[in-house]
């Protein structure tokens, strides 16, 4: 496949210490509601090395999605800074960050192909060029032959595949995923998780993956960051030292169960 994504990088680069792909420093977030001020996040510090697949879990309402939206430059934190590849985030930065949302958020009047090409269209890339690239990405996510379908003609899983392909479209070094599989059924979620890992193994982007599926978090991630209940604080960072590439059999291992149990006990104490 002649996909012009960045050259696949080795899993663990040896040599000089790289600057972190994402650096979160002292993020605190408050917002106003009718009943006063809510402290959503308190003093979050986090650093993600390039090429890592990092999960963000925590009880509902702990602000994990808000934190991701701050990384994406869509929400401005009350205090603190976020830097991606050394440069501060002050607003959306599509060249550095791809975002995949819980809802596929496809433009319903555009075909699958046009949806994938949308970020390039916004940047004025000529039609032929952007559609050639979008076609390759659709093939990558297993949607060959669905280029000209509109979103309403696709299943939930297919729509999310299109959204993932769109996230890859500008070849950003960092991919932010906000519960991308939460709206899907169990089987589709597992299949898509495997697909995501396959693509990630190939291109080694830095991924931050918000989820409340603990099995999913352990299965996909190199590291799981556990946030506390409101106000969200970093409770623990758990290294998932399961071998890669992973296949579903790993879920049946004792070690997998122990890691999952460890995360669950941290979250359970919060709620």
């Amino acid at each position: 496949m002649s996909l012009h994504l960045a050259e696949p990088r080795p899993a663990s680069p040896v040599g000089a210490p790289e600057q972190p792909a994402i650096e979160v420093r002292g993020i605190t977030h408050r917002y106003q509601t009718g009943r006063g001020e809510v402290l959503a996040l308190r003093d979050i510090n986090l650093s993600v090395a390039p090429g890592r697949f990092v999960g963000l879990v925590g009880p509902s309402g702990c602000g994990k999605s808000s934190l991701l939206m701050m990384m994406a430059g869509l929400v401005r934190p009350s205090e603190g800074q976020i830097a991606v590849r050394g440069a501060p985030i002050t607003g959306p930065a599509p060249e550095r960050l791809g975002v995949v949302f819980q809802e596929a958020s496809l433009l319903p009047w555009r075909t699958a192909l046009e949806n994938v090409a949308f970020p390039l269209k916004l940047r004025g890339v000529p039609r032929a060029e952007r559609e050639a690239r979008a076609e390759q990405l659709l093939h990558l996510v297993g949607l060959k032959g669905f280029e000209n379908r509109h979103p309403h003609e696709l299943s939930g899983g297919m729509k999310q595949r299109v959204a993932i392909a769109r996230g890859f479209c500008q070849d950003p070094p960092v991919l932010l995923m906000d519960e991308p599989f939460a709206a899907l059924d169990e089987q589709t979620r597992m299949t898509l998780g495997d697909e995501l890992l396959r693509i990630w193994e190939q291109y080694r982007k830095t991924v931050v993956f918000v989820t409340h599926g603990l099995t999913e978090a352990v299965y996909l991630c190199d590291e799981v960051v556990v946030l506390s209940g409101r106000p969200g604080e970093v409770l623990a960072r758990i290294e998932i030292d399961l071998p890669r590439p992973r296949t579903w059999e790993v879920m049946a291992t004792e070690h997998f169960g122990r890691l999952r149990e460890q995360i669950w006990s941290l979250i359970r104490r919060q709620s």
Partner: protein
Amino acid sequence: MSATATAPARGAGWRLSPVALRWLCLAVLLVLWEVAPRAGWVPRVILAPPSAALVEGLAEWEFFASALRFTFLEILASLCFAYGLGGLAGLAIGLSPLGRRAALPLVSSIYALPLVVIYPVMTAWFGIGPASKIWFASLYGIFPVILATAAGVQLVDRQLITMARAQGAGFRLMMTEVVIPAALPAVVSGLRVGGALVTVGVVVAEMLASTDGIGFLITQNRTMFRTPQVYFGILLVLVLAGGLDMLISRLERRASRWRPQQDNRHE
């Protein structure tokens, strides 16, 4: 026996599609219209048969043609104002929360008023030439366009806006790539109502005070009891309005082409 087994059997004996039924109703009306005055059920001064209207009207075709062109151009100019300014105003109102709260109730109340009462004032301001017709018809047709556009803009999926923002879309691209296409099906329904009101506005204004146009010809012929010519004028207005409506329906179908099914629409 299930309902699915009996349904086709019933359909086989009585197969008249809704479209056929519509045309049948129209044909019956036409025949009644033709027969009623000829049979003497209705005096011919009140109702001229359509055949007579066509014959008498076509005999004076140059008059009608020039009036038709005049009216058509007035409608066209009014449509430009009503659609253009109405669309822009609707966009501005729909996009700003303040605009929605401050302007929307005002626009809806004005829309509910019988605006025709201000037409005499407009003739005082702009004379009885085409300017007063265009002002009046534009004003008459602009409100449904504003309301439908504002409503359409408000209904745009917030998630799509967030997505486009994350992709770095600025204001202009957000409008052309997300907001306007998403609002289009709702906007077109406003264009439809606005277009009908513009036509009504122009013709009524011509009937009230003017020196040219189809409305003027209808009134003039009526004062002279030339009933067939009156009906010919009415037919021309119907053709004009029907043509405009057909054009907009086509646009409507195109605007909502991507939707799952035609009958799943919410308008």
